[in-house]
């Protein structure tokens, strides 16, 4: 991300943003980008309005155009109440929003957000995600995150990079399907369950006993859907199942396997 935005030079290779090479046409590329650096650093001694106007001016807006841009960005991230406050007195959530306002101010085609929800409370996270989803309609939004639920929540394509190397690239669903828990069924019952009978069902790769009593997870073979068979077995045996859960796959487990360099 730091390379895409022209902050660091790549040690080899290059990239281009909407046709502008990041090394030879850095300025043109930077004009297309809105960037929220990690932790949303700002000039703390400036007021929110002063800071946003500075960014607008750097982006080449003057006079009425500038005011209108600032107002539009402020409205989009709901900063109206704190416009006159200096940035260092704001809470973390507000600071992040100032950073976002700064990034979307010039209506960039490409938006690069480094850990946009890191350190925010659940409400703020929800707000930021909604904002990102709203922006994604007409922009390319690239986010980095360590929060894997966010990948499922907002992304249409996910890329895992470990040690500078690309280890996975696909939709969140594709990534999830690489998990051994993809299409796995977790059962919780009041009575003991017959794990041998479950393991013998067609398409079942194995059965894992969970720590909870009378709870187990039935793993599916890759590409198989096992829920109907299990359901049939439950009604045939008359088990009282209190919880039944079909898993989409565990992203964190995929992530751990990928970044540790183990083959799936």
């Amino acid at each position: 991300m730091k390379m895409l935005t022209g902050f660091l030079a790549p040690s080899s290779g290059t990239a281009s943003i909407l046709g502008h090479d990041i090394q030879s046409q850095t300025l043109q590329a930077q004009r297309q980008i809105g960037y929220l650096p990690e932790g949303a650093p700002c000039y703390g001694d400036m007021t929110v309005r002063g800071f946003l106007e500075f960014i607008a001016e750097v982006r080449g807006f003057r006079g009425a155009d500038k005011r209108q841009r600032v107002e539009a960005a402020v409205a989009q991230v709901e900063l109206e109440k704190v416009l006159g406050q200096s940035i260092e007195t704001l809470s973390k959530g507000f600071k992040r929003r100032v950073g976002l306002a700064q990034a979307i101010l010039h209506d960039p085609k490409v938006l690069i957000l480094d850990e946009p929800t890191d350190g925010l409370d659940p409400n703020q996270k929800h707000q930021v995600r909604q904002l990102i989803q709203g922006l994604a309609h007409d922009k390319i939004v690239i986010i980095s995150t360590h929060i894997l639920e966010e990948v499922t929540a907002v992304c249409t394509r996910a890329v895992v990079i470990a040690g500078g190397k690309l280890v996975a690239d696909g939709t969140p669903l594709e990534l999830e399907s690489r998990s051994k828990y993809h299409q796995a069924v977790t059962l919780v019952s009041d009575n003991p369950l017959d794990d041998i009978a479950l393991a013998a069902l067609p398409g079942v790769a194995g059965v894992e006993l969970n720590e909870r009593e009378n709870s187990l997870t039935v793993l599916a073979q890759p590409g198989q859907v096992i829920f109907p068979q299990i359901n049939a077995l439950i009604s045939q045996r008359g088990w009282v199942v209190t919880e039944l859960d079909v898993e989409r796959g565990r992203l964190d487990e995929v992530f751990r396997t990928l970044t540790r360099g183990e083959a799936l």
Partner: protein
Amino acid sequence: MSQLPVIFKRELASYFATPLAYVFIVIFLVLSGVFTFYLGGFYERGQADLTPFFSFHTWLYLFLVPAIAMRLWAEERKSGSIELLMTLPITRFEAVTGKFLAAWVFAGIALLLTFPMVVTVNYLGEPDNGVIAAAYLGSWLLAGAFLAIGSCMSALAKNQVIAFILSVAVCFLFIVSGLPMVLDAFAWAPQWLIDAVASLSFLIRFDSISKGVIDLRDLLYFVTLIVAWLAATAVVVDLKKAA
């Protein structure tokens, strides 16, 4: 080029957003007054000129100017805002020059606020105001050279205090290179080397300007020095921004 005034404006405003600007100006005015009247013997000399005022500027700047310059880049690096600044569509030249000019104009404002000195000396006698104007110009150029060095040191160090000490040290070298104690150490050297070392000195250049002699070579010396140190700043910023 078009974004330079924007950077300049923000930087200058940021000086006045904190008490730093006012503290600096007050200290500068008080110290320059103290030096002029007590150490310089302004009244005792019985001459209507500002020599005692300007002759202490070099030493005053040695400690005060690095204090303005130290935050230029070190603060950006510390707060991480350098990442923001460097990913905005501005060139290194605009960022480095904009910041420097803001600091330089700020130093100029502090310098202009010493105008009561000029008023006093004009009230007491009939000084050569041309010489005084030349000396002001020289003093401002001197501050610019100190600032350019300070800006480079600030880009080198992440810590403002280290930036301050480094720039004081480098500026000190540039001052003392014209003093006998340094030149005597070069007694073994050929005359051209001694001349070269002496010609690097702020003291000698500044002295001649403050006597009212505006020599093109002296002006060129300060301008070259500023440009060279700013170029070095740009290089250092590029190299160390990730650290």
